[in-house]
């Protein structure tokens, strides 16, 4: 009995009926993987893991609509409340901080999310300056959820952990931030802790990430 090759589906033939995630409001925003449904056979539902590559979805797991409904009941999927919508090429499904869903071209989504991340970071700095630590932390988390690349929001969170006397938490934030230069990250944390002179954030921006860093990173701290 010989095997078949794995299947690739055209996005033009698919609807989106939900996403394979369930999020508390405090863990928004988020980019979420769509749950697709084959338009010509509504009983075929496609689930991640998969890759979206321009006009196709590759490597998805095909399940029945009934199984998808059971996964929803099991808290693994969220179905769209407004019914199905057409899938489109090179688009991204993401949830705003306020819970609103967006489906737009990847480059537009990226630009919007990066801007919202910068806005949240500005709020975090203001809140920190004004001594509203809890609000500063919420805003820094929001900045990271919108864009996990810049190290500054992690530095704010590390500074907050330092103020709380939580050394382990401070170290964890450094581990999460992946600074190019840990010493420079520490200076940035000093700055946000209010016991050092300002530094140029560019010094610690991880511009030199490798392709592997974007896939996953096996920590060097283990």
């Amino acid at each position, binding site marked *: *009995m*010989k*095997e*078949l*090759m794995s299947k690739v589906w055209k996005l033009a033939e698919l609807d989106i009926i939900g996403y*394979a*995630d*369930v*999020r*508390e409001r*405090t*863990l928004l925003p988020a*980019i979420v*993987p769509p749950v697709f449904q084959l338009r010509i056979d509504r009983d075929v539902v496609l*689930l*991640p*893991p*998969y*890759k*979206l590559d321009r006009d196709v979805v590759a*490597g998805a*797991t*095909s*399940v*029945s609509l*009934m*199984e998808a409904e*059971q*996964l929803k*009941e099991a*808290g*693994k999927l969220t179905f769209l409340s407004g019914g199905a919508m057409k899938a489109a090429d*090179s688009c*991204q499904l993401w949830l705003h901080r306020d819970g609103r869903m967006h489906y737009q071209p*990847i480059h537009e989504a*990226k630009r919007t999310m990066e801007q919202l991340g910068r806005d949240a970071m500005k709020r975090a700095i203001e809140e920190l300056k004004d001594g509203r630590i809890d609000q500063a932390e919420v805003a820094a*988390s929001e900045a*990271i*959820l919108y864009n*996990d*690349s810049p190290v500054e929001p*992690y530095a704010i*969170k590390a500074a907050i952990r330092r103020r709380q006397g939580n050394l*382990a*938490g401070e*170290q*964890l*934030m450094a*581990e*999460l931030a*992946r600074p190019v230069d840990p010493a420079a990250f520490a200076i940035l944390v000093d700055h946000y802790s209010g016991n050092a002179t300002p530094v140029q954030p560019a010094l610690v921006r991880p511009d030199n990430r490798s392709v592997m*860093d*974007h*896939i*996953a*990173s*096996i*920590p060097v*701290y*283990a």
Partner: protein
Amino acid sequence: MSRTRWESNLNSHCQRLNDYMTGSTGLAPMSDRATGLSKRIYLSHATTVSGFSKSWQGGALISAAALARKMNTTLPSDRLEVRLGTADNVFLFAAPFRYPDTSCGFLFAPTLEEERTVDGAASPFDSGGLDRNITFPKEYATAPDFLYQHEFPLPEHRNYLRLSMENLFSRPEHYIEGVPPKDAGCLGLAGGDSRRWTHEVRVPDRILLRGSHLQAVFAPRSLVSADPQLEEMFTWCRDSGVERIYLDAPVDGDFEKLKAACVTYIQATLYNEGINV
């Protein structure tokens, strides 16, 4: 539960696979690579961030039935696991994370199986796939019948995994990397995808998380920084020597990062260390 029955199943299916290979391309010689990988492959459990966080808060992965009991409710009778008789189990793959969660995951050392030899069982496929996606031979009236005949004991199901890796896949590593087997074997399963040939391990009731079997935890870095439970989990793991793998946001439409990171982790830890090639 019957370990005797599981052992009998395993013996007969190992023999069947031996006979099948002998009668077709010939039985492959036992390889160190397949022996090492089948013995040491980790147990994976992927989940949503919500499930990940709640599991840590509760200290354990718990079965759907146990969760229902905890909430003073019952599972609907048409639910797949109820129909298969597996609702009181926690499900793991003896493989990288595969389906359907893309956010977070726990990876356990195979030593977990050694503590559950009395009550835990495995099957050489994902039982959930038997519902509709994977078809099984007509000689079995129902999916539960088929499953009943294909339950293997822990950890000896890995003997069947070794035979599969050696004989059905072009290379033993293909099982881990998700490359379909060159030959589907003699179980009579058809259709579906990797669920058809991925070993499922079922452990009754619960699996404690803050135990010595936890090997690695995987989650998006953004969520670890934003969720206090995840921050506590990763701090505990850091202090306890459990490896932590952070994922970047899927900005590029790649929702295979969790799976890919797990394969990379396995390649880094099992392909080159302690396994004779």
